[in-house]
């Protein structure tokens, strides 16, 4: 008999174990979801400091990778179970849909309080990525819907040791397009690979093409293209595409760059296997981890034209939003204000080697990060444009550039193809109206 009872005893034990597993949350505790696994320890430390200072416990909950995090946030939004603070990954239209569904609190009042004291501390453009002004195309009420935890921009990096090996001056990186190609020719003579970047992730191609376009034709002409008033077959756009063809023809690109993911590109540059890289400011931490003795510098993408200023992509590295349905939203906003204050931002920047979102926290930065900071005012981002290109057009452009890089298409052919996609999208838009 005793033998027969055993499974039931086990069953009762399991049921008791499983029943007592629901989370009991402290009512004053702030819960924050994030995906930044490489900043976990730093964020936990800051949570402890905040509790010590205010008595309010903060719980950072990590969900990585970012794809899994995005799924979790979307699912939680559908069931109104979002935490007090969270981040929305994706484009501005994704943030807009969360706002329109009532999940993101407008913190404009807090950020503009005391004559905008909080606002003035932060870099302007990354903050703008979380703001919607009157008449925005998304139908979002005017307001501020998030704050950046850190900022970033994307530039070129060059390896000073490889420059020396090729007889180039390591303190004079190429400035113009001609300089860049000439430097590549010298590097090639010494068997050194040129530019490496994760162009398998096509957004990096879009980034460089956009840099060239801003430099060649300026904002007004780009906006006119977005409106459909300038064609992609215009000579300036063809010139943008020809720059990629030139890089291919001159052998200025590292092997396999077209299909390379950025993590691989980072390994190649960090190990001194390519002279140039195109990467975001987060790379400082990455390269430090892979090769602390890497001697490299930061440079703007080569200037193609003197007509318009050079720009680089940049903005917020990561943003935090307050849950509009949280009963602790005031406390959540207060925590974000504390998190973006100078002391915490200095700590974050020091520990994670990322650019702080607080301008006053730009102290004791590693020299290489300081070089990135110097160009923050040059940053642009598609999210900050009053108009957005049709996703299919952007896709046709970036994938088409990959085709140019492998010699499948000419710039003229691609320009015509992109314009055809644009025409179709415009027609669809007209039909919908």
């Amino acid at each position, binding site marked *: 008999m005793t033998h027969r009872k055993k499974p039931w005893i086990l069953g009762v034990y399991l049921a008791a174990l499983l029943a007592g597993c629901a989370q009991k949350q402290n009512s004053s505790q702030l819960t924050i979801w994030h995906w930044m696994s490489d900043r976990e320890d730093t964020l936990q430390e800051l949570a402890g400091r905040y509790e010590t200072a205010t008595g309010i416990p903060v719980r950072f909950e990590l969900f990585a990778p970012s794809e*899994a995090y995005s799924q979790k946030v979307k699912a939680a939004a559908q069931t109104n179970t979002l935490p007090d603070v969270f981040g929305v990954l994706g484009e501005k239209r994704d943030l807009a849909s969360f706002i329109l569904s009532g999940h993101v609190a407008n913190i404009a009042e807090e950020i503009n309080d005391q004559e905008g004291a909080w606002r003035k501390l932060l870099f302007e453009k990354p903050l703008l990525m979380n703001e919607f002004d009157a008449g925005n195309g998304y139908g979002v009420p005017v307001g501020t819907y998030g704050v950046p935890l850190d900022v970033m921009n994307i530039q070129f990096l060059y390896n000073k040791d490889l420059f020396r090996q090729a007889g180039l001056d390591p303190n004079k990186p190429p400035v113009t397009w001609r300089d860049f190609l000439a430097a590549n020719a010298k590097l090639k003579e010494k068997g050194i690979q040129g530019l490496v970047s994760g162009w398998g992730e096509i957004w990096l191609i879009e980034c460089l093409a956009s840099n060239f376009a801003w430099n060649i034709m300026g904002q007004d002409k780009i906006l006119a293209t977005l409106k459909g008033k300038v064609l992609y077959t215009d000579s300036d756009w063809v010139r943008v595409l020809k720059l990629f063809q030139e890089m291919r023809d001159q052998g200025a690109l590292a092997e396999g760059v077209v299909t390379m993911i950025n993590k691989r590109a980072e390994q190649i540059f960090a190990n001194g296997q390519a002279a140039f890289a195109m990467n975001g400011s987060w790379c400082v931490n990455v390269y430090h981890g892979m090769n602390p003795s890497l001697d490299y510098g930061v440079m703007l993408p080569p200037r193609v034209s003197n007509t318009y200023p050079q720009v680089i992509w940049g903005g917020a590295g990561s943003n935090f939003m307050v849950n509009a349905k949280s009963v602790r939203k005031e406390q959540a906003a207060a925590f974000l204000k504390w998190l973006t204050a100078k002391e915490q931002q200095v700590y974050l920047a020091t520990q994670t080697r990322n650019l702080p979102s607080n301008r006053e926290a730009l102290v004791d930065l590693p020299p290489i990060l300081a070089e990135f900071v110097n160009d923050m005012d040059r940053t642009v981002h598609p999210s900050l444009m009053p108009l957005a290109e049709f996703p299919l057009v952007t896709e046709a452009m970036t994938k088409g550039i990959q085709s140019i890089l492998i010699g499948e298409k000419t710039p003229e052919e691609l320009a015509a193809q992109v314009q055809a996609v644009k025409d179709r999208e415009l027609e669809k838009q007209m039909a919908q109206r």
Partner: protein
Amino acid sequence: MYSVTQYRAKRFGLKLVMQLFCAGVAATCLFPLFWMAASSLKTQETVFSDFSLLPSNPQWLNYVNAWTKGGFGVYFLNSIFYSTVVVVGIVLISSLAAYAFARLRFPGRQFFFILFLATMMIPIPGAFIALYVLLNKLGLINTHWGYILPQINGGLALSIFLLKTFFEKLPKDLEDSARIDGCTKWGIYWHLAMPLAKPAIAVVVIFNVLAVWNEYLLAMLVLTDKELMPLQRGLMVFQGAHITQYPLLMAGMTISVIPIVVVYLLMQRYIIEGITAGAIKG
């Protein structure tokens, strides 16, 4: 016309080619494991510059760091618990269902079986949001059950398919004899069919242990408490959006692979028997 020597030489040659081919396949399977183990003993700086499989300065501390930084103590026990409960659940439910599909006659038998098979076409990630909504309504978010039940559900279709095929091949005469001896339907299932199905059950166990042990996305969706998370969550700590701590990640992966290898070695005999006995024949 071949002489015996020529015949033997040809046979030897063929055998050699076959052996070389098999050795090549084995090497391609084993190399990633060796690379993982070797990388786990390197530093972040040398992992992509030192390509030797036996590092000159092995960093054994990586294992200690992976265990402590990744919080493996809790996660390891959690994974053992989840794997046990899920696999026991799957074996119990799927064997009952498979036996019913194989031996009992009831209306809609074929229809329901195909319906079960159809669920194999829907991967869990494809139903994440719907699943989250359902679990939330049932109050199962961030609970053990919320993580266990979907996995039992997800593992049923393949297991039922494997076991049904096996049960169908059992000689009916055996069951008739048991029935004559006064055995009930339950008795036949429990005392006759289940012991005979050990090889097929071994296949079901190993497939599902592997799936549960390596599961991560569902855990991310359903669980929020670190204390409830499985082992794979510990590995994610080393894999950031920008930074991956490869040596610690590889050390963690090596640790996480060990139990699976042990389970496989323990059940190896049954698995091979199960496969050769037709457990996975269509």
